[in-house]
């Protein structure tokens, strides 16, 4: 944060912009994954566990092979395995998918901490960043505009997902399963198959987000690396009204809000440091209070969400 200091007050918006791009990327990938999952009618709170498993796997594979891209792929695969367990469990009759998600958080974080203990010390090869700040001599601007390719991948994913839901046959299947599973079943769609695929694909994206955390920003493996981002993604999706492109804006807003506390501290406003650090959570709660209603279903909300199967 010494970089921001040299810019004075201008450091704050630049740090927030950098935070939006850098800190928002994991939110973007996780919330896109959660959006796909919820569109099929199931909630996956367990993405928090997937995030930790992804972060640990990516770091371990990168340490052992020296190839961060192999780590990235391994993280996605590990996420899919956890996603499959969640899909099987959450689709059992009488099993609450929120409870299943909490169980997956405990199980996933347990596994990640268990196998990750050996990797807290070693240094892993990091994912590369693309320099968009080459025109500036300011290190703060340069570091804010050093963007990981995964950010562009995430942006592409949300626009593709939007198109997928609106214009493709498979997207229609997912929405049908999420809105009216009985009608979908009558159409001959396998509800179990569609939901399992959606949950696994969503978990793959969350695994990538975990890899981003340990291999790009903050760029190390610790047990506190996810800080609840996987659970916050569920709130982000509600915030974004189950709209993939909305997830992009919500994630950028969140990433920026997260960077606010440290940025203000660097220009000398440190008296409410801890409360500013909680600003993403306060912001989400406020937005939910202002936009939710108990009179009718929210626009875009899948009809079967929260119903027992």
């Amino acid at each position, binding site marked *: 944060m010494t970089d921001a200091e040299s810019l004075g007050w201008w450091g704050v918006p630049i740090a927030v912009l950098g935070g939006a791009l850098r800190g928002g990327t994991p939110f973007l990938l996780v919330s896109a994954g959660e959006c796909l999952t919820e569109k099929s009618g199931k909630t996956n709170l367990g993405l928090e566990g997937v995030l930790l498993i992804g972060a640990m796997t990516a770091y371990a594979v990168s340490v052992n092979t020296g190839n961060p891209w192999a780590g990235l792929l391994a993280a996605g695969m590990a996420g899919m395995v956890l996603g499959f367990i969640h899909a099987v469990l959450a689709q059992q009759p009488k099993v609450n998918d929120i409870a299943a998600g909490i169980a997956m958080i405990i199980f996933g974080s*347990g596994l990640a901490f*268990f196998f990750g203990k050996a990797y807290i010390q070693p240094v892993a090869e990091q994912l590369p960043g693309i320099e968009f700040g080459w025109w500036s001599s300011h290190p703060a601007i340069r570091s804010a505009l050093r963007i990981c390719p995964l950010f562009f991948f995430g942006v592409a994913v949300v626009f593709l997902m939007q198109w997928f839901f609106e214009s493709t046959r498979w997207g229609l299947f997912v929405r049908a399963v999420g809105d009216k599973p009985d009608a979908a079943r009558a159409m001959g769609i396998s509800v179990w198959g569609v939901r399992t695929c959606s949950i696994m694909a969503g978990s793959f994206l969350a695994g990538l987000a975990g890899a981003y955390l340990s291999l790009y920003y903050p760029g190390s493996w610790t047990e506190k690396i996810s800080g609840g981002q996987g659970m916050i993604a569920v709130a982000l999706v509600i915030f974004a009204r189950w709209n993939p492109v909305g997830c992009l804006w919500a994630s950028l807003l969140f990433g920026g809000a997260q960077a606010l506390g440290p940025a203000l501290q660097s220009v000398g406003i440190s008296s409410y440091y801890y409360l500013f650090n909680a600003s993403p959570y306060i912001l989400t709660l406020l937005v939910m209070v202002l936009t939710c209603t108990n009179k009718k279903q929210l626009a875009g909300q899948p009809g079967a969400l929260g119903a027992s199967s």
Partner: protein
Amino acid sequence: MDEPKPASVIASATAEPPPEPLPPPETQPGDIARERPPARALQWRSKVEALVIPCGAIAVALVLFGIFVWTQGANPFAVFASIYKAAFASTRSFENTLVRAAPIMLCALGTAIPLRLGMVVIGNEGALVMGGLMATAAGLLVVEAPALVVQLTMAGAGMVAGGTWLLIVGALKHYRGVNETISSLLMNFIGIALLNQAVNSWMKDPSSLNKPSSFPIPEEKMLTPLGTTDVHWGIVFGVVFCIVAYILIHKTTFGFQIRTIGANIRAAQLAGLAVGKVTLVTCFIAGAAPGLAGMVEVAAVHGVANESLNVWYGNAGILVAFLARQNALACIVVSVMLGGLLASGGILQRSHQLPDATILVFQGIVFLCILYSESLYGKFSIFQEKKS
């Protein structure tokens, strides 16, 4: 307060659309519900089922966990023996277990009671932290008073703070339709941030350098251990709170209203129940329990409010609430078991070279198996009552 009407009255009063019939009061809420036969004399089969299925799930979890530690090069039987030894074998270790069980028990009620309403509230951690923070603040305000007054003030402040914390969640759900799981989750983060902010600024004891803390509650004003043991009063609070919650839910009119709303909220509204009032009061009671846990942690263990309050007791409580199938009495037993499990984390590291996260893996496997077993009720014909 209106007496809830029997199902037949509701059915006849509203012809269109036909409401779902009100389930019998013994039935569990929501999707965890299962049908029970009407004749009381024949219920022993379902009672056996309710015992065999969870025990079977735990047995499967033990086997899976055994395989897991075996693949990691440890002897599973030696690991189980170590866990038992560290948790229950000696008086000293059992006392340690009970000290951990007390806050878990109280936190479990924070999830178990709203589950009866059909609400999945996971805000125990936040309620515990707020309870601990407010109890400390209140205790410091009356610190000159006799010990009993200080302790009662702290307990009251902790319960009110925790209760208010979850009351907000219930109010947001009732008035604005905000998903209670998400809002309680966010409230956890906000509560922890408030604690950190308070002990780093307004309540900071300047002499606490390494770990910013509040000013301490004097030693002589803290909760004393029970007799000659190391166990403190928290376990008594926990057991009493669980028993009171059980009686409230199962033996009172108010509890019947809670279970009616949990079973079918539409039917409850049609029956004229004050759904909002019941929801808010229930959430307040539920939050008071983890709030009291926060007070106990300050008044009996730490003596100060600091980040040590936030050590996952709240999350352990969520696990207990589901394992105990929301039964407040079962919460006591399951909390003691989990307390023992948590107490054994150190020994696995020392004697078996397993990381302390091993216990977390074990908890995860048990939770997954228990949840899966929920779907097995009614699947085994041997437990079905024979139709006469």
